[in-house]
Every structure is written in C-alpha cells, then in structure tokens.
C-alpha cells in the first residue's frame, strides 16, 4: 500500500524540462562560493512528480473526503471559491513591499476584514499580522505585558491559566517571560472561582480563558471572573479557538475581554493545509490599542476617494512590534474575508446555531447509546467530551483504540486525550457543515466498535486495518531517529 519515496524514483540526468529556464552561461558565482556536491533533490519527470504526490494525497483523510470531528479544531467545509479568489493573479502576484498605489484592492479587503472581525467580537481594533493562533497568543500576552510596563507595573508578570487550557496558553506565557499560575476547574466544568480569588494578587498580569472552554461548556460566571480580574488590576485574554460556538450570538468584548486572538483557520474556514498555515488575528479593546502589532491597515481619503494605507511603528510608537517579515498570512486573510462576505450577517449566527445543534444532537444520541458524558448536567457548546473510562476498564479498549477503529469505519477520529483532566476522553466537534445522516452514522460506528470490543477486544486493539499503514511504533520513531533519507538507505 505504501508509496515509494520520491528519491527512489530518481534517475541521474532526468528532469522536468518544461519547468526550468536556460541560463546564458554557467558563470556568475565566485568559485570560492560555489557548492561542490549537488543537493539531494529528486531527478524525476513531471509525470512522475504529479503521480507521486497525487498518490500521496490519496493516503490522507481530509474534510473533503471524510467526516473529521476533531474537537477544538473546527474542521468545517472550506469553500472552494475562497481559494480560487485568493489566488487571482492580482492577489497572488502582489509583492508585499509593493507601493500602496498598487495594492488598493488588497488593502481594501484587509481593512474590511479588520472591521468585520471587530464587529463580530465586540473589540475596538484588529491587527491581522499574527501568523497562527499561537502567535496571536504571543501578541496578546506581549501586549498585556507592555501595558503593565507602560503603567510602571513591571512586577505584574503572572498569567493565570485554567488547567483545561490548550498547551499553547502556558507555553505562550512562558515565551513572554511570564510566570504561569494554573487554576483548577470545578466539577461542573466552570473555573473554580475560589481558586481564582486565591491566585489573584499584586503580581497578576492577566488571565487567559477559552470560552466556551475546551471542556465544551460556556463559562457561566464570566462576568464575575471579569470583574475579579479587573479589580485586581489584571487584564483578560480570550483564546478564540472556540469562537465558532458563539459567533453572532455573544461577543467576547461584551464579556469584558481586553484582548482576543482568533483562529481564522477554524471559525472562518480557511484550510488547515495538513498543519497550517493558520492565522491568528488579534483584537483589542480601548486599553490595549496603542500596543497592537504592526502593520495595521488604515483608511483615509485621497482626491475624494477612499485610500488605504499601512499604519506602522510611526503611527503606533508603543506597538509590541512586528511578528512577521511582512504583514502576516495575507492569502489566508483573503480566504477568511471571502468566507465572511459569503456567509454575511445572518450566516454568522447560523454558524453558531447549527454547530451547536449538531453537537447537542450528537451528544444526546451518544448518551442514549450508553456512552458516558464528561459533563452530563451541562449544555454542550459546539463540542463536548465523552469519557471512555468505563470501556477502558471493563473491555480493556481505550480511547486510542476507539479512535483507530473509527478510521476503519471511514471517520477521522475526534481529539483524544485532551483536555488532559478528563480520563480516556474524546473531544468531539461535528461543526455546522455536517448532515444529520452523517452524524447518525458516526454514532452507529461508535456503537459498533463497542460491540466488537465486547466480543473481540484484541481485534479492536489492532485497528486500523484498512489504512495505508497500521499502528506505528512511536517509541522507535523517537529512539531511532530517522528524519531524513540517505542514498543507500533501505528502501520502502
């Protein structure tokens, strides 16, 4: 089933000739600088390359081919038109340092996008430059730090993070030179308010929250939390990973958040691309406006017409600075912009509504089928958690086994073993894109796997059987590192 490596198809002297220019001579590089050994790049025909990567693509599960209920990742349909319009020659060919006069079309899209993101989140202003969620987080925490330093409160360097948070939250706080104070989650899934009160103090810089949280429930006491943190002199950071759940229904800005990052590759449907590119636009309220990362797009008038221009360190001297070589993942931003315009004002609300409907329906069906919910007393947001601790104990088939067995049934697995505080968990997010019948079939698949486990646990533990490879030896991968192919190495 497996595909040879491209290097193994290589023959010395073969070339995709239509793709290469012919230099006038072999001159131009000083002899002392000249490379002696050619790099290991494949020498294949165009057809060989096309066939190889087409065949490799067929070894992937993807949204376009499979239901992909990966919790916290919002794997919704990525409309094709968003891609084709972002790749129009005027956009794809525009140099990032081209003059504003030759970028008005692009800049207009970016300005409109900033405005729309501010409107849906209830924030004041946006910067689009962070290149992924984690970089948006970095920008957010850096702004919080810059604010405290600017106010003479250098000592405020503690960032409070709930134990259910994404790993990027504590990692980000550390990258910003802050200390992480982890607080517990109560048995109902909400933040433990007493733990929060005990943690707040004169060194508090702020708190990072995801709402709805990674436990798939809305933080009901958010207004109380907001007041407590602000009273203690801290600021509130909103991790936008789960914005899909409340889009057009409730806004982080109204909840008292001072800064927010959005994952445009989640909520606004830009492609996940096998692990990126993402885009982590950041929005701020009044307090943090001066600290936004640059560049930002501004709008003025020239000869009576709208004229868009860059705002840089000159206009925002207190900015935390630049996070990318140019202006961030522009092509991703264009795709998000097209998506937002296609969905429109009413469509935003429908996204949250139908994502929530699918999640609650799926949750109810699994509960009726006898699976244990992590928070049965709570309303699911756009995702929810099933714990398979009973199955693990009684049938010796754990969450990972269920995940792998799902692959054989034609479903990508939900997120497994996250959040860390729920044992043997599956975090399931169906998104608004999926039909009722697809959700029903997913329930059937989980029920079937459990039945199979009752009769033949070993069979389930050996899954998957139908994928290009079976379960892989991760321990060997880490101990006997094989990260690059070498000529003469054993072939596949």
């Amino acid at each position, binding site marked *: 089933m497996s595909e040879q490596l491209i290097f193994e198809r290589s023959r010395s002297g073969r070339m995709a000739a239509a793709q290469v220019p012919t230099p006038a001579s072999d001159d131009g590089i000083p002899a002392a600088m000249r490379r002696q050994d050619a790099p290991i790049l494949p020498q294949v025909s165009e057809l060989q390359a096309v066939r190889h990567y087409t065949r490799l693509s067929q070894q992937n599960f993807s949204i376009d081919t499979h239901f992909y209920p990966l919790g916290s990742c919002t794997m919704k349909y990525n409309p094709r038109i968003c891609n084709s319009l972002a790749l129009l020659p005027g956009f794809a060919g525009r140099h990032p340092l081209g003059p504003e006069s030759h970028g008005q079309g692009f800049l207009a899209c970016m300005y409109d996008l900033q405005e729309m993101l501010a409107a849906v989140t209830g924030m004041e202003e946006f910067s689009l430059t962070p290149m992924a969620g984690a970089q948006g987080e970095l920008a957010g925490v850096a702004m919080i730090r810059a604010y405290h330093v600017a106010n003479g409160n250098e000592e405020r360097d503690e960032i409070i993070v709930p134990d259910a948070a994404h790993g990027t939250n504590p990692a980000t706080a550390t990258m910003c030179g802050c200390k992480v104070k982890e607080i517990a989650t109560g048995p109902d899934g909400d933040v433990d308010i007493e733990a929060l009160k005990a943690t707040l103090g004169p060194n508090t810089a702020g708190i990072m929250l995801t709402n709805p949280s990674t436990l798939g429930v809305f933080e009901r006491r958010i207004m109380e939390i907001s007041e407590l943190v602000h009273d203690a002199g801290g600021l509130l950071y909103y991790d936008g990973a789960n914005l899909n759940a409340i889009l057009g229904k409730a806004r982080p800005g109204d909840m008292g958040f001072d800064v927010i990052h959005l994952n445009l590759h989640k909520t606004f449907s830009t492609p996940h*691309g096998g692990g990126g590119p993402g885009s982590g636009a950041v929005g701020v309220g009044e307090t943090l406006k001066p600290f936004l990362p640059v560049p930002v797009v501004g709008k003025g008038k020239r000869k009576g017409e709208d004229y868009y221009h860059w705002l840089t360190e000159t206009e925002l001297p207190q900015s935390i600075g630049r996070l990318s070589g*140019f202006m961030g993942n522009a092509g991703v931003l264009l795709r998000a912009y097209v998506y937002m315009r296609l969905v429109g004002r009413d469509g935003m609300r429908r996204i949250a509504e139908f994502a929530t409907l699918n999640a609650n329906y799926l949750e109810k069906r699994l509960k009726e089928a006898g699976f244990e919910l992590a928070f049965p007393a709570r309303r699911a947001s756009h995702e929810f958690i099933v714990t398979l601790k009973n199955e693990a104990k009684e049938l010796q088939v754990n969450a990972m086994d269920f995940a792998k067995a799902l692959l054989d049934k034609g479903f990508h697995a939900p997120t497994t073993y996250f959040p860390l505080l729920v044992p043997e968990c599956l975090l399931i997010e169906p998104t608004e894109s999926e039909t009722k019948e697809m959700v029903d079939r997913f329930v059937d698949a989980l029920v079937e796997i459990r039945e199979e486990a009752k009769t033949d646990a070993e069979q389930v533990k050996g899954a998957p059987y139908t994928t290009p490879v079976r379960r892989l030896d991760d321990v060997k991968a880490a101990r006997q590192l094989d990260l690059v192919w070498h000529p003469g190495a054993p072939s596949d």
Partner: protein
Amino acid sequence: MPYIPHTEDEVAAMLGRIGADSIDDLFDEIPTELLISELNGVPEALSEQEISRMMRTRAAQDHGALCFIGAGAYEHHIPAPVWDIATRGEFYSAYTPYQAEASQGTLQTIYEYQTMMASLTGMDVSNASLYDGASSLAEASLMAVRANRKSKSLRVLLAAGVNQIYQGVASAIAGEQGLTFDRLPVDVNSGSTDLGAPKEQGDAPVAVVIQQPSFLGTYEDVDTLTDWAHEQGALVIAIVNPTSLAVLNAPGDWGSNGADIACGEGQALGVPLSSGGPYFGIMACKEKIVRQMPGRIVGRTTDLDGNPGFTLTLQAREQHIRRTKATSNICTNQGLMVTAATIYMSLLGPAGLARVALTSQQQTTKLIDLLASIPGVEKAFDAPHFHEAVIRFDRPVAPVLEALAKRDVLGGLDLSQNYPELGNALLLCATETKTDEDLETYRSALADVLAQENMGDA
C-alpha cells in the same frame, strides 16, 4: 443557507431528540445580558457570483506592474502542477497529522521535504517548517540559547547583511525572554560585513547570525565569520535563501566546522508572493541539538506488521505535552506551503534549481549594467552579488520610485532610511521571470524619469 445542510424537518427532529423547543434554547447557559439579537458591522451575504465579481475587480486594481522588488520575497515561475496538487482537498483540507495512519500522505511529504531541506542546507536534520523567515530567526535564536550550554549570554550578534526586519521580529518575539540583538557594521564599499571593524564589544555572544546572500545581495565571508564565531564559543545561525543553495556553499560546509542551525524564508520554492504570506520558515540543524529544535518533526518508523511508515516524533519537546517547558509555543507549521515547496523541488531537481539560481543572478547583473549606463545612476558596490544588487542615484530615491510606479515599474526597495550610510541607495532584484525585454522596459522608464526630473518636471 450557505454551507449548512439541514432541512427544516431535520432541525425539528434533532431538537425533538435533544428535548429543546428551539435552537435558541441551546444557548441557555449564556447569561442573557450577553446575548445579542443583531450583528452590526457585518454586511448582508453575497452570492458566489457577487463576491467573485467584486474580488476580480479588486485583484485587477493590484495587477499588471513589472516588479523588481526582492528584499526577502522573490517572484519565481511556479510550475502549474505545484498548486494544482497542493490544493487537492486531501492536502488542502486535512489537519496536523495527529492520526498518523490516516495522514501518511502529509507525513511522507514532510519527510521528503525534511530530506531535501537538510541536504540543501548541509545540515543533518530539518523540521516540518516554521511560520516565515523572520520568525524563524527568533526561534533559531531561542534554540541557540537552549543548545549552547557553555554560554550564559543572551546576546545574539548579527552580521551586517542580516535583514533588519528579521532583527526587529526576532527582538519582538525573543526579546520577551531577555535576548538582545545587535549587529556588526557594513563595509560601504563591498556591501558585506566589515571584518576589519572591532568585533569584541560587549559580552561574548551566544550566537552569531550570518545571512548569505546578504540582505543587500552581496556575499559574506562566511568561512571567516563562522570560524571566528566558534572561537568565541558562539553557535552559528545561517539565514539562507534556498534557491541560492543550489549553487552556493551550504551552511553545513561553512568554515572548519559548519554552521549549527540554518533558518530562513522558504517562499522562493513555489510559493506565490501574495502580499507577504502565507510563506514558510526553514529550520534545520546538526543532529546533536535536534532535541532543542522547535516545531513539528516527522520520523520514519515501522507499523505493527513491520512495514515502514511515518509519524510525528520528538513530541516531548512540544507545547501540548510540555506546556510551560516546551521548546516553543508553536503548534501549526505551514504544512500546505511545505507541500507546495516539496512538489516544486521535485519538479526542478538539483539541476533545475541551479538553473533558476544562475538565470536570476545573470538577469540581475544585466539589469544593473543597463541601469548604471544612465547618467546619475551607479552601482553601489564593487563586489559580486547573487540575484539582488544595490544601485545609487544622484538624488533622493523615493520620488524616483513613485514616478516609476506611475509607469507601472516597481523599481525596488528604497534603502535610504534604513541604510543611511549607503546614500541614495536602491535594492533591486531580477529573477528568471524577467526577460531581456523587461529589463529594457525598466531601463527606458528610469532614463525617462531621471531626464524629466532634470527638466524639473517630475
């Protein structure tokens, strides 16, 4: 309803099963004072036809100029198969390959990419990419601090040819952890690092960063700088342009022992200019420090049946496992860009990439020879260049560029603000995409602009 498949009957059936009267009931845990009834500031939906027309108009506004700007982002021909295949849904709409068995396509592609990138840079290993070139320097610097256990310093010293924007970005990201960045002076005659200037100001650096070719398109004496850095106990970080590595000495071969980490911008390998992104950051290193490398890494291993397969590995470095102790907060890489770059490198091969590099270099030589023939224009350096070069005008650069832009020639990057020591200097670039006719278009436009200005008609 765009992109929502539910029929009315299905909604009723689903609500019935849930035991809710309406969809609004599903939001009953959100405090009522937070619920909004209408979303202002977002326009009504457009149809696919309407948005297409609008975007075509906007894209056309930005299209049609002849571009001679480089400065870290390069226009190269992108073979048609690259994005045809990269945007297949199976690559485009998949996510991080957490379920390895269902992601072998992405994983094997990354393994092949790692092999190509390690070989291009002359390093032992490569990761699956970072966000972009500028942020790759921030990550490489943080990595050097972790890896250089002999040094307590947080000072990173940059050769003169390091992109100033990269320095700013590295400072914004890594400065939060106390790293400082300063640079060696430029020799205004050669456009390279002034090796004669005293280098031992301040603490011994934890790392020395060398960009080759330099931001100004010239060559650094990488062997001397590398050996000097190692003598100081510093690690060497190379910033590379991957196209140039088809013909230039790889960082792994610099000096006596080679650079320790290579990073840089990968965009030139099949990624469109697209106003600055998405691009991807290169990160490769010597095997002995691989556990300090940030970002996703793919390894080859075997499955239950003993067959070879690919999986994410060394995950113990990463944020979802280590949380506060992770090597970086990075979560995504730039997977789709790496897929495109891998296809690009496969189509070109070693000889094709070398031809792209040589043709670009030669077109730039032709261009500056042509331009320097115009009165009031001269070459800034008496030194060889790769596919970018600096010219100098006898007058301020900005008005000249503006006048060229009106003639739909984007003439290059004005250096006079950031490199005042170079005078009225302009950085320009011609790649294999520029024909001799294009070069002549630039020459005649510039001659025209300068002549008009001389007559006071600019």
